[in-house]
């Protein structure tokens, strides 16, 4: 059981700056995020897209913003729990007990939800029966590529993940690559390589097709794919892989007794506290009259929520407002003074 002054859920820009604010005022914190990397939507959805409305930063990409925020956290020691999703939140006397899907447990008076639009999950195939084969012969990510050796693998998608795996697995497996249109959005070199392999029949390419159904009882036998013109083809397949990017799902947050409206959590604008004492929501996931879904709003919300955490984490101390330009305390925490 990890004891901490505050637990932040979400390692996007808002979660990162909130961590900064907590550490600056002398509280410790840990961060959990379902993605395998830090940065949230900035890193997952638009790492290369420029952002123009961060105060005092005329232009930066999602990746640059993330790296700058990580740099800003350098003076502090913050533990990140990546590829973990918070499943359970329960009240135990004064503290919240938190459990992740990997079994990590926390005890804290403060939980700050900086969860964006929820946790990122792979986008799945639409035919219902796909669920029956999921994680057996149908996957949305690859953990052990050796299982595909000598097998027939049908890969769906038009981005780098689909192309990279089609190329990689074509060395030892029979590959069908299926995409809904002629164009691929992967890197040009990867697309060229794939086309080369398709020409030499190392990859069977099917464009303008989508998955219609998967067939088999216990074991996957074949799949049906449908062309834009409704023509259906049956492909023998031992495995099916889908690479359609990630979607955002609110997930377990919906079960924690919070006031949720249209996938956002209602908060007050003094502490950014939810209807549950000691649970705050900041960034895109919170809502209040006048809410703007901007990164700069998330920074403000996180700064205020961090101050609210102080009261519950240090009930016998009084929080004193200080500036980083002048406060010896703050400069010590920032490593700028002995």
């Amino acid at each position, binding site marked *: 059981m990890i004891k901490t002054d505050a637990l932040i859920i979400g390692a996007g820009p808002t979660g990162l700056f909130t961590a900064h604010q907590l550490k600056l005022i002398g509280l410790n914190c840990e961060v959990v995020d379902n993605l395998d990397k830090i940065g949230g*939507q900035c890193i997952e*959805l*638009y790492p290369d*897209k420029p952002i123009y409305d961060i105060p005092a930063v005329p232009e930066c990409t999602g990746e640059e913003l993330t790296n700058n925020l990580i740099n800003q956290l350098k003076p502090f020691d913050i533990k990140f729990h990546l590829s973990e999703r918070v499943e359970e939140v329960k009240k135990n006397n004064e503290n919240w007990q938190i459990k992740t899907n990997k079994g990590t447990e926390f005890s804290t008076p403060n939980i700050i939800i900086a969860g964006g*639009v929820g946790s990122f999950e792979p*986008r799945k195939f*639409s035919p219902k029966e796909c669920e029956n084969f999921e994680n057996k012969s149908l996957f949305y990510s690859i953990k052990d590529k050796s299982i595909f050796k000598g097998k027939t693998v049908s890969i769906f*998608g*038009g*981005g780098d993940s689909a192309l990279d795996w089609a190329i990689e697995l074509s060395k030892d497996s029979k590959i069908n690559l299926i*995409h*809904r*249109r002629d*164009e691929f*959005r992967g890197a040009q070199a990867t697309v060229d390589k794939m086309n080369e392999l398709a020409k030499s029949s190392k990859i069977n390419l099917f464009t303008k097709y*989508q998955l219609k159904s998967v067939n088999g009882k216990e074991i996957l036998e074949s799949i049906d794919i449908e062309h*834009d013109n409704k023509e259906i083809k049956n492909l023998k397949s031992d495995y099916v892989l889908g690479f*359609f*990017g990630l*979607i*955002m*799902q609110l997930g377990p947050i919906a079960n924690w007794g919070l006031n949720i409206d249209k*996938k956002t959590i209602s908060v007050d604008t003094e502490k950014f506290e939810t209807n549950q004492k000691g649970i705050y929501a900041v960034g*895109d996931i919170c809502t209040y009259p006048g809410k703007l*879904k901007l990164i700069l709003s998330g920074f403000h919300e996180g700064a205020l929520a961090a101050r609210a955490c102080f009261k519950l984490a240090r009930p016998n101390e009084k929080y004193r407002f200080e500036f980083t330009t002048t406060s010896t305390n703050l400069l010590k925490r920032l490593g700028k003074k002995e």
Partner: protein
Amino acid sequence: MPKITYIEHNGKSHTIEVANGLSVMEGAVQNNIPGIDADCGGSMACATCHVYVKEEWFNKLPKKEDGEEDMLDMAFEPKTNSRLSCQLMVSEQIDGLVVNLPEKQV
């Protein structure tokens, strides 16, 4: 004000007036039309405001910009007449537009 008709997957139809300059997505969200999630808020990063545009309208709309087709790869059951409604700006030219909503967005 231009009228936009949103038809849910179950056939329920909503015709509403949407102010010029808003997107077809914003028209739906502001009027609580179920079936358009718009998780990313209109930054063309999520494909959860996906709609099907009736044929007679599809060719009248401004062409897709770079990135929209890529994003549609990730939509739920994209078709040749798919668009992201966050990229469709409301104006007098599209008064009467009819869009069909997919079974779900994710």
